[in-house]
């Protein structure tokens, strides 16, 4: 009987250790990138600045395409999580350093959900981006739950594009600006709708399916 109790005890301990190890592994795998917190300025507006790069250039996935968020102190943070107040005007500036291609669905070439359904590309207003001509669309900044979609014009793929983030404006880039009103408090998913996970089937794996690269959340607080 003592030997049976001993076997049961050992079995339970081994299973417990394995279970705890699995939990720790999952927690580590699900580790979340940092959140950049924005507050409204004196005019009650929030200014959000992002950049999109073709290669992050370092870390565990140096070849992955990625977004970065600029913290209020000017530092670029490798994350796709940011927080801002509810019901304020949000002015977004995106420095776009990547090349482009045709959109899988040109419906995403339409600017929606911004003030006037318009955005500016290097200072020039546009409502539609024809991704079948020119440099095409590099990425989109889309938040489906609030109907926000802004296609981002690509750079010339033959140019000497930035190869490692954070990129600076000395590299070829486009500047896209738009504004929208932040919704009520909650967590809003945003993502790029260009399947830019190169090397992954349908282009929607890898960076497209990993927080901190091409999709994230906008946390809106009261």
């Amino acid at each position: 009987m003592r030997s049976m109790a001993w076997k049961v005890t050992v079995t339970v301990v081994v299973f417990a250790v394995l279970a705890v190890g699995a939990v720790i592994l999952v927690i580590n795998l699900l580790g979340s990138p940092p959140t950049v917190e924005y507050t409204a300025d004196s005019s009650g507006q929030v200014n959000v600045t992002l950049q999109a790069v073709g290669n992050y250039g370092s870390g565990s996935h140096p070849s992955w395409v990625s977004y970065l968020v600029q913290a209020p102190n000017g530092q670029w943070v490798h994350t796709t999580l940011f927080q801002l107040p509810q019901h304020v005007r949000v002015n977004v500036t995106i420095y776009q350093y990547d090349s482009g291609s045709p959109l899988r669905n040109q419906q995403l070439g339409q600017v929606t959900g911004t003030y006037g359904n318009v955005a500016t590309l290097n200072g020039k207003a546009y409502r539609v981006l024809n991704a079948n001509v020119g440099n095409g669309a590099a990425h989109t900044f889309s938040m489906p739950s609030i109907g926000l979609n802004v296609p981002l014009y690509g750079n010339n793929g033959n140019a000497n594009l930035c190869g490692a983030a954070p990129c600076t404006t000395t590299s070829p880039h486009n500047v896209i600006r738009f504004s929208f009103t932040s919704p009520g408090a909650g967590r809003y998913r945003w993502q790029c709708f260009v399947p830019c996970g190169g090397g992954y089937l349908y282009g929607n794996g890898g960076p497209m399916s990993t927080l901190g690269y091409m999709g994230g959340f906008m946390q809106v607080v009261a």
Partner: protein
Amino acid sequence: MSDPQATGPEEVAGGDDSRHWWRLIAIWVVLSAILDPLFYFLAGPHIPPGTMTNTAAGAQFDFNVLFVIALPVLLGVWIYMIYAFVMWRASRGGPDPVGGPAARGHFGIQLGWILITSVLVLFLAGFGTYELVQPGGAGGGEGSSPIWTPTSKTILPIQVIGQQWKFTYRYPTFGGFETNQLVIPDHTSIEFNVTSLDVIHSFWAYQLGVKADANPDYNNVAFTTPQQLGSFTVRCAELCGIWHGAMYNSGVVVTPQNFESWAKVTEARLAQNTKLLPPYALTYTPDANGADGGYYPSNDPYSKVEQYGAKQPKGGA
């Protein structure tokens, strides 16, 4: 004082069996006669998915009918169980419980059991089959060549396009514009042409009672007819990747006049982009404009760079 050991098995088990049977049947009939109508008329109208469309109302009706049939069966089991606990339980200090007389060989019980269960199952098979095909396929995807169609001659076609990770909707009878909004007119037969431009999704318009898989290169047709104004939820019901859980939006049923107005305004508003979309087709193949959604050429030995309309990306997209 009688000697418990001297009592026969029949007396221990309850004495006059027919008295118990009639009592059980009376309780069962009374409870079923009370609870079935109570459920059907009080709870039934609130059973999901509601009655926003004829297909949703059909699903609600089917559930209620099945419940009304199942409830007496459930009551029969529970009543017998509770009655047995109360009437035939072993009492402290009493005789050990013994089995009752064998029921096998009772022609009436066997015939009744076979007849009742056969009638129930055959009725449910017939009822279920009939309800599945009407009205117009009961809101389910019928494939590319549906045989159960609405009787209405005027049908509004709407293409539902699933993509990782959202749905868009194309209105071919209004210039083929494509939008994030699903707006449909009341009391009008709707033909959803459901497809996907990447992986398998599933278009589940919950309150409409419509659910159809969205497969790439395939047109899956589902019909419904709204009969109430209001909003409804659309969800993807097929695990389709990391953001599957966030693949939902809402639609709205409006009056035909408001729908006409919305469609014309939206057609005009999106005209610039509609010109750039591929011609309307029952499947939405991204190859039409080059971005076929497969591996990028630099990673795919079977893809030619020339297949893409624009020059190839150096880094990412």
